[in-house]
């Protein structure tokens, strides 16, 4: 929200109220990637503990609902399916139980567990990342660290274009529906009805690119020299401490793993 109260140097500090959401997105990413790696070093027990931590973090950030909704539908579903299918279909020898015409084998259960754990480890961490990190904050934070403004532009523009194009398509689809394309006729009929709408939509959006290129040039997008920003993502002492702890944790986890492996 832009208000007439301008901070002293003209730069607004983007710091949400919640302490977890206030963290620099790079910190959050660092911590979560480290968590992925660490959970991959060890077995499902560590993964389970980490997932509990993720759930608590999501709760503390006020994002538990969104986390569960995304997590259950993608990561958990996939893990369950993988586990079940591997258990049932893997050609192992030690049959534990028979289900209809399929055998649940110990090797299958083992493999299923292994892969499911891997998916849960990485997936759960990344979903936490997607609910905690705002992409715009992330691109700003990266730009502050020195990534090119062009990269930021691509990401931010995509975020704008996807809903734009979807709305555009919805309008065209409504027009088609009014003209009577059935959504439950044969796939061929449906395909033949929708294909002609896709090409002009694509063309229209592409033709606008030239003018937008001119617009960006008119606003100095290609000008050499430093850019300034009206918004700053803070990188506080807490961020730096967290990152330091994370690096330490990776080293320790690696050491423990190697030590265990040598037993």
């Amino acid at each position, binding site marked *: 929200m832009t208000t007439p109260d301008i901070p002293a140097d003209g730069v607004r500090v983007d710091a949400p109220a919640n302490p977890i959401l206030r963290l620099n997105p790079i910190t959050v990413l660092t911590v979560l990637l480290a968590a992925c790696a660490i959970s991959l070093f060890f077995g499902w027990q560590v993964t389970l503990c980490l997932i509990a931590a993720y759930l608590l973090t999501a709760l503390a950030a006020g994002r538990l609902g969104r986390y569960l909704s995304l997590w259950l539908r*993608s990561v958990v579903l996939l893990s369950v399916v993988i586990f079940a299918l591997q258990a049932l*279909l893997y050609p192992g020898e030690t049959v534990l139980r028979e289900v209809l015409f399929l055998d649940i084998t110990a090797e299958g259960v083992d493999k299923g567990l292994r892969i499911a754990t891997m998916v849960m480890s*990485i997936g759960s961490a990344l979903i936490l990342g997607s609910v905690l990190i705002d992409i715009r904050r992330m691109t700003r934070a990266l730009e502050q660290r020195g990534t090119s403004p062009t990269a930021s532009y*691509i990401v931010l523009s995509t975020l704008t274009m996807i809903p734009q194009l979807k709305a555009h*398509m919805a309008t065209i689809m409504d027009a088609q529906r009014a003209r009577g394309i059935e*959504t439950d006729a044969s796939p061929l009929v449906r*395909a033949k009805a929708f294909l002609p709408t896709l090409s002009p939509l694509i*063309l229209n959006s592409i033709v606008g690119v*030239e003018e937008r290129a001119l617009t960006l*040039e008119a606003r100095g997008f290609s000008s050499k020299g430093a850019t300034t920003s009206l918004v700053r993502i803070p990188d506080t002492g807490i961020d730096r401490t967290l990152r330091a702890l994370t690096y330490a944790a990776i080293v320790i986890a690696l050491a423990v793993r190697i030590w265990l492996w040598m037993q």
Partner: protein
Amino acid sequence: MTLARRVREDFSLMAILIIPIAIAINFVGGSLALALKLPLYLDSIGTFLVAMLAGPFVGALTGFLSLAFVSATDPTTLPWTVQAAVVGAMVGWLARRGLLRRAAGVVLTILLVILVSVTGVVLIRLFIFGGFTTTGSSVIAAVMVAAGIPMIPAQFASSFVSELPDKTLSVLLALVVIRSMSDRYLIKFSNGHLFTAHSRRARRGKPADGPADEAAGAGALQLAPLDGPSTYGSYDRWRGTRPAAAPATTARAHEEARR
């Protein structure tokens, strides 16, 4: 031309601006296919379009970013970013070779795209996910394996069934869109000159029209005089635009267009 130079030329402002549109097209195509319950993905039309126009590097980045955006809400799709990048790069490379100018080349491209996509799907599914995921074609594979068909043939068959119509349609649709783009627009992209009506006429051996081509012929044989018209290449925000740099570049560009 060095690799770095080639990459920078591919990434003109036009190419950079078309990437978000291409990603959005991928998303719209994907959700459209879902909404209409078609047995297709249709989530690579944008990638192919950009790859054909701006080359393999831009194509690879578009494919990668497209899947990266999808994995923002579904991290289990992260491995597919690599596949999308590889397919995008390949289409871009084939387009740059001029393969897409002939019908036989288009068919070859489609076959290669299907082959690489299927291989990628099978490899990723097998080595990362152990063979089964939640996608429709994976379910088919599971059913086949349960019925007794060995794993690898089942995987190839099931993904082939879904990739064949999808990739064929996507490549063709991308080509249709490019065909309807004006020459003036096409030349703003690094590969664009391959698809212009102008170059199509030239390839068929028909006399090219007008003074523009005569000037092109003259430019190829001698350096343009310093106080004559300076010819500027297609828009490239990285290239310096001093007139002295132009004649050699134009001569090359005209040669390429004539090939």
